[in-house]
């Protein structure tokens, strides 16, 4: 078992990680690496984040298109998503994110198994691709008659000046269905994050608020930033139902465009992945008067806490009772597994470097089986995801992010209907539009590293030898070659679900399996492990 004493001093670790870098780069990276400290009122050190990755660094990051088309819009089943660009981007984002979906009937639309692309050719780059895009939209319409068609721009589109918004506007008029576009060219911003923002903006402009039908249900909420990887959203849908909470729309796991259009009829927005969807939450609040707060359904305790927050919001005794009953039932089952696994995992160490919220959320699950997170960081988060939204006013937008549109949102003259005031919220013990960030919840002395590089990861593994390292597909097998198991927290290694209570149980068992797999002890051939004298002795005997 790895103990604290055998690990190098965290303060020194950071220097070791950048030791091989050219001085300028080392200095830059130093700003993105901190040792966690907390003042009594929860203030943590400043970390630089959402800044560009230095060329030549092997980074975890992807691009704006990936954040927009892949992350936010990918999980919605009934929109025909056309990638406008050469074939690659569309091909790579074809079914690779494991967003599960469950159409209500065999007749229901589901385009998630399809990849649509304009497959731009030389002549489209030279003479423009608008004509081809128009043809593609028409052909998609003729073949499938979808409710909506969305267009996603890839790198060359912006450069050659195709006006995709004009084309979609025209086609929307011509076809009489919703057709809209995302200028999510890969070079925008510094990571997937820019794409999240662009996706949020366009969803808000073109989709949300179009259908005012108020459905049934007394406690109507949206779940934002839950993408149904490995079926997480299915578990949460079930959990909500058992508590009597009506889920109006999930952004965007197991979703349809109809649900988005109707989302403004909910009374509360619960935000899971803050990074990818906080803009929608904020804009809905401004336009329609629906408050939001952060929830976390990763971890049993966190799930219980999140359900209680929702109950507190609605101030309904019956709801509170049902929530408590559900929690009690679930926790009993969870506890049994915790008791079984905890003694085996207690004290082991974990590192989490992934995404924009999971590096935070999954720490809960490790804590619940007695494991300690000694280092964590995000791939594409901003300072507020680390330090909390309190630092928002102090974040300066740099040149790389300046061109990402910030929509100016005003209350809707008709549909604005404030649900609860700030005062009412705090009277119910609830935060208002707040996310406290990852660092306040981490131990003092833990390492926090933004946009970690392959080199830094290698050094961390050598220096600290964690029992498990969480990252993504690109990192997975390099980590495992060190003899250390890697848990993928984007795809879940094709396992899961890990959300809610049952998900927590799945995760405990998964980590238990990984850190105790017999194979980690079988790497070396017996003739290389036998110590010399013994070898000689045996040889003599023979």
């Amino acid at each position, binding site marked *: 078992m790895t103990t604290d004493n055998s690990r190098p001093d965290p303060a020194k670790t950071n220097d070791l990680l950048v030791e091989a870098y*050219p001085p300028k780069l080392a200095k830059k990276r130093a700003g993105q690496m901190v040792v966690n400290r907390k003042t009594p009122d929860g203030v943590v050190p400043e970390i630089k984040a959402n800044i560009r990755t230095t060329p*030549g660094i092997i980074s975890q990051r992807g*691009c704006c298109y990936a954040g927009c088309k892949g992350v936010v819009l990918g999980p919605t089943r009934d929109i025909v998503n056309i990638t406008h660009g050469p074939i690659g981007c569309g091909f790579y984002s074809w079914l690779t994110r494991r967003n599960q979906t469950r159409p209500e009937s065999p007749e229901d639309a589901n385009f998630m198994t399809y990849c649509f692309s304009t497959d731009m050719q*030389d002549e*489209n780059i030279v003479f423009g691709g608008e004509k081809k895009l128009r043809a593609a939209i028409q*052909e998609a319409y003729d073949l499938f008659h979808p409710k909506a068609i969305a267009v996603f721009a890839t790198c060359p589109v912006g450069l050659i000046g195709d006006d995709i918004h004009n084309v979609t506007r025209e086609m929307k008029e011509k076809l009489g269905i919703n057709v809209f576009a995302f200028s999510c060219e890969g070079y925008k911003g510094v990571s997937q994050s820019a794409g999240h923002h662009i996706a949020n903006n366009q969803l808000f402009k073109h989709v949300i608020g179009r259908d005012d039908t108020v459905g049934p249900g007394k406690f109507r909420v949206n779940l934002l930033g839950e993408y149904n990887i490995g079926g997480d959203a299915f578990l949460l849908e079930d959990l909500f139902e058992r508590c009597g909470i009506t889920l109006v729309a999930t952004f965007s796991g197991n979703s349809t465009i109809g649900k988005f259009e109707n989302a403004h009829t909910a009374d509360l927005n619960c935000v899971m992945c803050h990074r990818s969807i906080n803009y929608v939450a904020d804009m809905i609040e401004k336009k329609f008067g629906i408050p939001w707060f952060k929830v976390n359904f990763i971890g049993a305790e966190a799930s219980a806490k999140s359900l209680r927050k929702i109950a507190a919001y609605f101030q309904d005794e019956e709801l509170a009772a049902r929530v408590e009953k559900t929690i009690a039932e679930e926790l009993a089952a969870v506890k049994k597994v915790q008791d079984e696994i905890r003694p085996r995992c207690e004290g082991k160490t974990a590192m989490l470097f992934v995404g924009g919220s999971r590096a935070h959320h999954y720490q809960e699950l490790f804590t619940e089986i007695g494991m300690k997170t000694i280092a964590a960081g995000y791939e594409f988060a901003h300072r507020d995801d680390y330090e909390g939204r309190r630092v928002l006013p102090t974040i300066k937008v740099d040149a790389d992010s300046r061109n990402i549109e910030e929509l100016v949102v005003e209350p809707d003259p008709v549909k604005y209907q404030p649900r609860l005031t700030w005062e009412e919220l705090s009277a119910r013990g609830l935060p208002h539009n707040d996310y406290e960030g990852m660092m306040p919840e981490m131990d003092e002395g833990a390492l926090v590293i933004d946009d970690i590089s392959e080199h830094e990861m290698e050094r961390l593994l050598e220096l600290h030898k964690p029992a498990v390292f969480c990252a993504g*597909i*690109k990192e997975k097998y390099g980590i495992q070659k060190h003899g250390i198991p890697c848990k993928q927290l984007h795809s879940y290694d094709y396992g899961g679900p890990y959300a809610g209570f049952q998900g927590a149980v799945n995760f405990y068992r998964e980590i238990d399996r990984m850190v105790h797999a017999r194979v980690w002890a079988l*790497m070396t051939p017996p003739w290389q492990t036998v110590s010399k004298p013994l070898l000689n002795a045996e040889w003599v005997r023979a």
Partner: protein
Amino acid sequence: MTLLRHTTADVKERSGLTINPAKTCQPIGAMYAALGVRNCLPHSHGSQGCCAYHRSTLTRHYKEPVMAATSSFTEGSSVFGGQSNLLQAIENIFTIYKPDIIAVHTTCLSETIGDDIPQIIAKAKEEGKIPAGKFVIHVNTPSYVGSHVVGFSGMVKSLVDYFAVATDDKRRTINIIPGWVEPSDMREIRRLTAALGVETIIFPDTSDVLDAPQTGQRQFYPDGGTPVESLRKAGDSLSTIALGLSASGAAARALDAKCKVPCDILELPIGLRATDRFIDALRRAARVHVPEALNRERGRLVDVMSDMHQYFYNKRVALWGDPDQLVALSEFLIDLDMRPVYVVTGTPGREFEARMARVLAGKISEAKVRQGSCADMFLMHQWIKEQPVDLLIGNTYGKYIARDENIPFVRHGFPIMDRVGHSYFPTVGYQGGLRLLEKILDAVLAHKDRESSEESFELVM
């Protein structure tokens, strides 16, 4: 419920929309080829998303670390060009990741901008950013031309352009350009040439790179890959055998033009007769005798072909993927008396049709062959809906059609993201042929077992 529920038999000509492509973009091929060079770090000159996608896809296929760096373009670089990004990248890479070679490929972004890579490399050299004895090479891989196969071919040709030299020190070696095949195939080709006693230079060679052993000690650059020294000496070899016109032809011809090393461009040695031609070409080029062991190996393949003929006979097969694989596979299927009726590749190029026509040569008159834009898996699936097939052969994406239509499915090609085996067990050579037969039989017979009525359920096949 069906997974591809919107696909119908009603084929409409399309000019704008590709659906479920049977190809991907150039850079990933260049990246794969560069991984087959020793101590080489591929570098993607563009925004970082392309690099992330290519690494992810290759990793899903190989379940191995795939290292590559990127120029991480920002909006600024896409306006002002990526020169400073690449210069900075070169300096950082040599300082931090310490490869012997950086193999730069472009992306649609840097191509659209028009970055002049050789000029930037020259500048890097001038500024002392390339340490002595280290190299930066490049290939242009505009994704709006060709496909991943073209990117692969381009990088292999670049290896020739940058490294091969003709000296007075002529050698008896034969160059082998194996084409876009698996590490297992490259290893098998090495085994076959060794069995014949032929000394070879194989490039690129991803064996021992993308099938690296687990030892608990990571090697950032695994032991495999063709060393620079061998790439240099390729210019002094007796001759070159290039496998697969699309992936290997360009490099073989460049080597001929540059160093006067004559080349023989063959189909990939997948199946009996293509392997025969490969062995024969080796035999003639190196003037060696085919050892009895290889004859016996061949005999074992023919044995299974004849013994199991009833299960192959007249089965209709749909296949999709890359030209070199499709041509060779089709020939093999026909030798088994199977019927490759639908053959689709997104990789554009008229010569594919000509090669397919040669293989089909009136034997499969009902065959539909398509290449290029809108030649995609959606179209192929529509054909299947029109008139079904008995077997699917292609990459992982075929599993959706296989499940919807309840058709046996053999995974072959790129990418295979949901199974292992392709990295370790070859499909080239006689042994590879046997493995293919085993896979086909497994798929067909498992389907038969599952679907047959209780009374017709067979114990013995």
